[in-house]
């Protein structure tokens, strides 16, 4: 009979090590089935969490062969097919502290989440007597973000978090902030938004990992774009991230294409660029990669492009 070789990263509170198990292959099972088989039939000391088995409680996410999956709604066959192997390596989610084996610590994340005030700050539109009525459209605004089951998959895959655990907010925290910012009952969106901005909002790398792996298909990167837009509408335009985005936005309007030579200056300002980017600029010039004398010409059709900008403004208002 075909066997699956499973290596699991164990942690006993002091040391971690990999332990190997062999499980007879069965068709049509889930990842959670595999873990449960090991615990029930081979090793009762193996620790992992699960409860609902229906992608609701969010407790069963693990890393398999380098990527995060929700164990209960992930097909074993699909994983074997993805990695073209019968060897699976299980690890706890990345970017979390580990309690034991595959069990991770959530408390610090919940404390971090408090930064964005994850609760409704009631607006004056509602009252105890009349409640807070929402239109269907208003409700739909919060429908997708409230699907989050706090499984941690997005945080495990987040490339910014991997190098900046202290400073950056987990994608599910950004989702939570978004959820209150767009809630029609909330009267103080800036109170959720300001901490988002202050906690490295512009450091998101656009890597798309979070949105690609979220088991609830929450549009996390669209939300990040929305959060960034909102901070700029709030007036926070004088930071590297916003200035960088505006450099692209304005170059396309003016010429149609990006002026790479001016990009650092537009993003960082002349002084900062002179202080930090000179060696970079010199090596780029030496290789002919930037030519300070070359200014991009206007593209043919630039007037038409500007009409699209005008139209986008009309659409907004």
């Amino acid at each position: 009979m075909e066997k699956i070789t499973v290596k699991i990263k164990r942690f006993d509170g002091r040391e971690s090590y990999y332990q190997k198990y062999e499980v007879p292959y069965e068709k049509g099972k889930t990842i959670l089935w595999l873990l449960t088989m090991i615990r029930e039939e081979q090793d009762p000391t193996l620790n992992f969490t699960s409860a609902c088995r229906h992608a609701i409680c969010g407790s069963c996410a693990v890393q398999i062969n380098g990527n995060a999956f929700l164990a209960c709604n992930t097909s074993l066959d699909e994983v074997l097919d993805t990695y073209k192997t019968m060897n699976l390596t299980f690890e706890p989610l990345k970017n979390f502290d580990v309690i034991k084996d595959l069990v991770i610590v959530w408390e610090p994340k919940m404390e971090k989440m408090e930064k964005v005030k994850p609760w409704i700050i009631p607006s004056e539109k509602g009252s105890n007597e009349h409640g807070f009525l929402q239109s269907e459209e208003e409700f739909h605004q919060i429908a997708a973000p409230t699907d989050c089951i706090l499984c941690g998959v997005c945080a495990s895959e987040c490339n910014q978090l991997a190098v900046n655990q202290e400073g950056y907010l987990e994608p599910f925290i950004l989702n939570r902030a978004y959820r209150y910012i767009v809630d029609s009952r909330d009267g103080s969106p800036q109170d959720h938004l300001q901490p988002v901005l202050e906690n490295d909002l512009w450091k998101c790398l656009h890597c798309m990992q979070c949105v690609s792996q979220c088991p609830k298909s929450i549009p996390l990167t669209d939300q990040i774009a929305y959060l960034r837009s909102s901070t700029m509408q709030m007036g926070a335009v004088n930071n590297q991230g916003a200035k960088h985005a505006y450099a692209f936005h304005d170059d396309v309007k003016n010429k149609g294409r990006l002026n790479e030579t001016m990009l650092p200056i537009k993003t960082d300002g002349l002084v900062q660029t002179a202080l930090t980017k000179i060696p970079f600029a010199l090596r780029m010039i030496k290789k002919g990669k930037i030519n300070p004398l070359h200014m991009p010409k206007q593209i043919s059709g630039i007037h038409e492009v500007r009409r699209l900008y005008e139209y986008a403004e009309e659409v907004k208002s």
Partner: protein
Amino acid sequence: MTLTYAFFPGCTLESAAEELMISTKKVAAVLGIELIELDGWTCCGASHIQDIDGFLSTSINARNIALAEELGVSKLITVCNTCTLMLRTAKLKMDKNENLKEKVNVGLERTGLEYKGTVEVTHLLWALLEDYGLENLKKKVKVPLKGLKVANFYGCHILMPPDVMGFENHRNPQSMEMVAEALGAECVEFDQRLACCGFHAVFPAQKEVMTMTGINCLSPKEAGADCIVTPCPLCQMQLDAYQPDAQKGFDQDITMPIIHLPQLIGLALGISPEELAIDRHVVDAIPALQRKIQAV
């Protein structure tokens, strides 16, 4: 056989990554692929403009795609991951949402264009597998890259999000390996194969991105690679041009040459490194290539 594509070069090909323009055109000519550059294409927004205005981002890319539709070709080709993602994102949004498409077209009408949705957006890597065919590519190989150990660095935006890109499984893609092996090269396994280069936040997250760059160079180096190959000029720029800055944060030597996919293909087609403008890289790739490939 001649394949004809509308060609969207993207901004970097006009300046920092001009070598990718040069090598793409050389390789296309040898393979018999006709590239018709769009007249009046704009920047795709490079994953930044949607942070200011999502509708505008969709509109400018609808215009880019509409320019391709006017050429009467079936596919618009790029050689940049992020351009591909931006164009495909705009396309998918409009194709899924008739209202949005109509709204965008009201604007495009003022420019004399219309987005119809008849052109597919592809990347050279995909086109080689899907349209050109590996067997045909193999037939064109003059200098098999035997002994050259390449580290394939995909970059995020050619894979994710899968509902927009979806050419192959984003958790274990094989297209780069298939092409590299067809050229005779040996692919090394390394941890950072599907890592993020960090380019899109290199200004606001400079410190973090330099750490990532160091790790991204060190991982293939430790796996014995002669060079990294990437299908994205932004990954290339991040890993190559910023490598000296990244080095400062590392005690170990992280030196790793980084070449573009069309340059790798060009070498196997018998085109010289100079003609492929490999001498334009910050980290000199030519010695490592010379050591391994005869005829270079």
